[in-house]
């Protein structure tokens, strides 16, 4: 295989301009991943502020409005700045390598998709420093509260617009790459599952990011141009925003988990040394989840009031999602069944993903039940639920994928001891942090509140201790990544004994240009 071309190597400017002007999918993937890591620490430090304030009852460190800014921006930046860009980084690196393509289909557009993100980050992070501070109405931006906010509200709206453009362009590129750039013989049903999950995720993004753009545009005109979309005094309805937002928002939560499914589906077969159990059913389950995600949005808003028939419909449709998700969980377990397993760091994170994501999935079914949800709406039970799917789900999968592919990207093995420390401390810290929040929520503690009644004090203190532990542990990850980039044991081409997808056939580190001549898949 002519993986390395002598020309092309040096055909890029050096220094910072290499990264600014690059059209190489590996460079752009690296940019996405580092951007995501920086945003992860920024939004993570906001979370540390939240947990510090909630360490004990009363107001210790900040005013309630500051606290609301922290929760709002923690949510927005983690979702749009950390989790989503990390997955796009994986897609950039891995999709061309896994389908035997020389690069993404539209390389210049790929560069633009990335370089829009720092612009949006400037607006979001910068909004902390304008009069009135950052947006404080929650990451969901519900009117009328959001409409009443100050300058930062507009900065948030335009940041969302720019993030949306970035996601749409990036997704168009991923879809086009997968449809048009597969190596000869790589039929759709031979694609690695990671490629499949990103194919479906990109479709979801192209379908729903414009809807979010429409929703925030209406917020902007309601704020400044005298429209009454979300104001009953003009015939509009604030609940209408919630419908439009969650029509985006529910597919969005799958956008943040489907690529995680793909990563875990790559890792478990490798370390179980068995092919993935039920490949075809995995593909169909992913597609089913994506389709269902469009028709369940109102389960986020039972308590705003809707006809009973609508509540029943949304409840049953939501519960239906448990079926394809269950297919996936059982397939992962069946893949491990009687496998000859080893437990390197990627596998540890992947197994923790399966166990903890399933807990988050179960609490999701609990919350789908209308009468239960009416009790639990906006309590810490909901906070615990979505952190089980987003932290021990999406984030753990991102860590798993990073450890799994770092040797391919850098050419060095990461430090396994430090990796294991990172895993176990994360695993324990995470559960100390979020498990007690189920109890807090069941006991009625509301979310987005800087102070609380005395009976919640013990669990909050435990949760905060877990939070600081989890937060500090993430510094270990940075150390592992830096050490791995700078040196370490040379990685072989295949890296992992059980790995068999295309990226493991090229040298480690992956040459700057790969598959200039496409491989032929039997």
């Amino acid at each position: 295989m002519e993986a390395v071309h002598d020309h092309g190597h040096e055909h890029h400017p050096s220094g910072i301009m290499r990264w600014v002007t690059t059209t190489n999918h590996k460079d752009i993937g690296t940019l996405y991943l580092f951007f995501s890591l920086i945003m992860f620490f920024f939004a993570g430090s906001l979370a540390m502020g939240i947990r510090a304030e909630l360490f004990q009852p009363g107001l210790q460190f900040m005013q309630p409005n500051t606290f609301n800014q922290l929760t709002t921006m923690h949510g927005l930046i983690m979702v749009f700045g950390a989790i989503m860009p990390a997955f796009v980084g994986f897609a950039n690196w891995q999709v061309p390598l896994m389908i035997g393509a020389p690069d993404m289909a539209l390389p210049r557009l790929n560069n633009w998709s990335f370089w829009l993100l720092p612009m949006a980050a400037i607006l979001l992070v910068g909004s902390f420093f304008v009069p009135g501070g950052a947006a404080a109405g929650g990451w969901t931006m519900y009117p009328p509260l959001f409409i009443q906010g100050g300058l930062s509200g507009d900065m948030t709206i335009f940041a969302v617009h720019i993030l949306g453009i970035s996601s749409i362009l990036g997704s168009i590129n991923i879809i086009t790459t997968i449809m048009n750039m597969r190596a000869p013989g790589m039929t759709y049903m031979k694609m690695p599952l990671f490629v499949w999950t990103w194919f479906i995720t990109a479709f979801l993004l192209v379908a729903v990011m414009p809807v979010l753009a429409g929703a925030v545009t209406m917020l902007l005109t309601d704020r400044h141009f005298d429209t009454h979309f979300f104001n009953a005094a003009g015939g509009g309805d604030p609940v209408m925003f919630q419908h439009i937002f969650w029509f985006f928002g529910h597919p969005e939560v799958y956008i943040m988990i489907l690529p995680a499914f793909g990563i875990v589906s790559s890792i478990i077969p490798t370390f179980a040394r068995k092919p993935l159990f039920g490949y075809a059913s995995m593909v169909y389950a992913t597609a089913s989840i994506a389709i269902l995600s469009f028709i369940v949005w109102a389960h986020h808003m039972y308590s705003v009031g809707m006809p009973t028939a609508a509540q029943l419909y949304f409840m049953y449709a939501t519960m239906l999602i448990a079926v394809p998700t269950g297919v996936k969980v059982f397939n992962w377990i069946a893949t491990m069944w009687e496998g000859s397993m080893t437990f390197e760091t990627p596998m540890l994170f992947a197994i923790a993903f399966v166990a903890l994501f399933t807990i988050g999935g179960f609490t999701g079914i609990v919350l789908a039940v209308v009468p239960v949800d009416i009790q639990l709406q906006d309590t810490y039970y909901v906070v615990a639920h979505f952190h089980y799917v987003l932290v021990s789900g999406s984030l753990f999968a991102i860590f798993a994928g990073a450890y799994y592919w770092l040797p391919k990207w850098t050419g060095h093995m990461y430090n396994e001891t430090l990796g294991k420390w990172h895993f176990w401390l994360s695993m324990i810290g995470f559960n100390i942090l979020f498990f007690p929040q189920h109890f807090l929520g069941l006991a009625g503690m509301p979310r987005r509140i800087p102070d609380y009644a005395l009976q919640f004090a013990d669990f909050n203190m435990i949760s905060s201790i877990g939070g600081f532990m989890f937060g500090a542990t993430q510094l270990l990850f940075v150390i592992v990544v830096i050490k791995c980039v700078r040196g370490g044991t040379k990685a072989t081409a295949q890296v992992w004994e059980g790995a068999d997808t295309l990226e493991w056939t090229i040298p480690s580190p992956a040459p700057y240009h790969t598959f200039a001549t496409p491989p032929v898949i039997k």
Partner: protein
Amino acid sequence: MSGNKDSYYLPTPSHWPIVGSLALLTMASGVIMMVNKISMGGVTLLAGVAILLFMMYGWFGEVVRESESGKYNKQVDKSFRLGMSWFIFSEVAFFAAFFGALFYARVLSVPWLGSGDTMAQLWPQFVASWPTSSPGVEQVSGPGSMAKFTPMGAWGIPAINTLLLLTSGATVTWAHWGLIKNNRSQLVIGLFMTIALAIAFIVLQAYEYHHAYTELGLTLGAGIYGATFFMLTGFHGFHVMLGTTMLAVILVRSMKGHFKPDAHFGFEGVAWYWHFVDVVWLGLFVFVYWL
């Protein structure tokens, strides 16, 4: 990479994307400053637009040069086609958000405001109807205390505009046939007619807005009817202007002798976009103006 027809064309590093990103940041900053009454907002916005136009000129110019020098093979052509198709799909989703708002208001929230407890608690006199007010009907325009307005009728300018856009869809197809038959004058005349029809549409739409604001009292602030009316027709009009600019570019390219009967994605991409704008208008005509 090489210009070898067999290998996929991979562009060299490009500075256009970062220029585009800075343009969008500047434009966003300009609008944020304007709506918050911070001085220099308008200038900042204009500067952003200027940078964006510079970027588009440079970036698209580069693509056109690469295309005309034969660097793109069939596979690259297909990437462009797929990319444009999915871009149009995302535009459909964008309009869907506003159509969704329109249907939600008409079918759900306005009737709710005019019935049951909601009406009794808020505005007992409110009569739910769509448009939210019409001439001669004794009711306030919205539930609150908004000024009265007259809704826009369908069978005047909007009907003419429908004819204009449908005809322009036909002329652009006629131009396409000319291109395929290698009849260059049919291509140029067809495109010219399409652009003329598009400009006529924009002029009439501008006249309609002027009429709405000065004589009908129909403004962005005219309740949910005015909001959905201007948001939908406004974004559509913006897309028409974009499409007209794109048509003008391919007209110039056609006159320069670009495009071949068997390879003219630039033309087709614009034609697809134009048909998309046309279809959105049909939705607007039926649901915003007529029904």
